[in-house]
């Protein structure tokens, strides 16, 4: 039963163009990363060395928003059209349908995100060559925690998008919620009076990624409060809470 429904959900994702558009926009990260590296590379050629941000970190929000949109649309495209009723007639067990949807969104966004992140990483290092750009002095092994944490953050945002889209039953509300979690709330947290800015910011979704990798939040906020394991747990907690609440509503509400 579960396997059949997962196959169906995967086909649902593969058979609409919005999926390819969202992944296409996410993959722009590779292009932007290459352009960025080329640009800072020419600056480094003039000055000898430079401290530039890593493209896989700088353009991460693009990846996060575009693939989170995939999560939102996975459910709201059905809720808005009434397709969800057609789906529930063929799969009356709501837990199975919801789990299959979440599983497919989770797997596709994680696979897509890690692929795009690694490609961005590889092309930018290749373009950088032996120039000193600030971000290309560490080994892949040292950068891998950050890359995987970034990939996981994309998946969590997509699942949060799925959950919020399901709870609000609206594409617009789902997207606004994701954008709030990603940009608005962390923005507000930064401008709280210290030490509350760092304390609150430590729990903000985008700031969990550097904490998992053991880096500082930003020059302004300094080190976060959370050790890597706690940051990882908090990240997963975001997805678990929104999915849990969404499933509760999905199971109880009339379709």
């Amino acid at each position, binding site marked *: 039963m579960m396997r059949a429904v997962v196959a169906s959900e995967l086909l649902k994702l593969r*058979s609409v163009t919005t999926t390819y558009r969202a992944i296409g926009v996410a993959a722009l990260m590779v292009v932007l990363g290459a352009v960025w590296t080329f640009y800072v590379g020419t600056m480094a050629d003039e000055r000898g060395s430079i401290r530039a941000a890593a493209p896989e970190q700088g353009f991460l929000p693009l990846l996060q928003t575009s693939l989170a949109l995939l999560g939102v649309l996975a459910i709201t495209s059905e809720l808005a059209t009434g397709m969800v009723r057609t789906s529930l007639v063929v799969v009356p067990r709501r837990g199975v349908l919801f789990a299959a949807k979440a599983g497919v969104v989770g797997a596709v966004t994680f696979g897509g995100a890690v692929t795009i992140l690694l490609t961005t990483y590889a092309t930018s290092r290749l373009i950088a060559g032996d120039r000193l750009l600030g971000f290309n002095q560490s080994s892949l092994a040292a950068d891998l925690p950050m890359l995987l944490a970034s990939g996981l953050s994309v998946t969590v945002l997509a699942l949060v998008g799925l959950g919020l889209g399901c709870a609000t039953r609206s594409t617009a509300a789902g997207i606004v919620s994701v954008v709030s979690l990603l940009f608005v709330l962390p923005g507000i947290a930064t401008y709280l009076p210290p030490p509350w800015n760092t304390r609150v910011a430590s729990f903000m979704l985008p700031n969990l990624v550097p904490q998992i990798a053991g880096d500082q939040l930003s020059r302004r906020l300094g080190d976060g409060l959370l050790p890597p394991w706690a940051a990882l747990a908090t990240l997963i907690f975001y997805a678990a809470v929104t999915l849990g609440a969404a499933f509760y509503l999905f199971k109880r509400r009339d379709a």
Partner: protein
Amino acid sequence: MVRCAEGPPCRIFFSVIELHHLTKRYGDTLAVHDLSFSVAPGHVTGFLGPNGAGKSTTMRLILGLDAPTSGKALVNGRPYMSLARPMREVGALLDANAVHGGRSAYNHLLCLARTNDIGPRRVAQVLEQVGLAGVARKRVGGFSLGMKQRLGIAAALLGDPRVLMFDEPVNGLDPDGVRWIRDLMCSLAAEGRTVLLSSHLMSEMALTAERIVIVGRGRLIAEATVAELISRYHTLEDAYMALTAGSVQFGVSS
């Protein structure tokens, strides 16, 4: 052909859709009120009632889409939610527009078929059967209502189920399509399947259905054969008008 109208024993054995004191309340509105009837195989059962009478709600309750406030609906003696592969037992068309417009007809059906382990060959078969084979790869968003009705019927037929429910499938169809649906409904029933069909077209219903269930304001108004109604009221339309006279209410969606 087994006719369940003939005696109670066969009702027990052959009634495949059963409603027992089904009640659904949305806030202050009683959409379905203490509704009990059963639908037997071998003929088309027409489901009639004014807009807002609770026909669509009743169908949603049978399919487990809405939870009843009280009472129960059974399909083949079991709640719909407990069916492991529901498409193989029940096919339903509730709303032809409840599709993702960006998906092709073929992929739409394949998405549904996959959930119940039904293969692509069957998808091609039903597309052929409903006359959509030529537009199978076209996006559903560009379909007319009539084409969407055909697509919905194709979805209902995918699992070759013994029980079929159609909510106003004739809407939006051209005369050719109307006749096609009539013939399809009759042939499905003649194969011994159970067919519950709702429609507002009385002349069409008189040609297609053998038994009629009429509801109004969520309550059962009448349950009779078309022959009985016509002998008493002259035409089915007159019967419907007379029986639902006190039940027409506007401003409530069905």
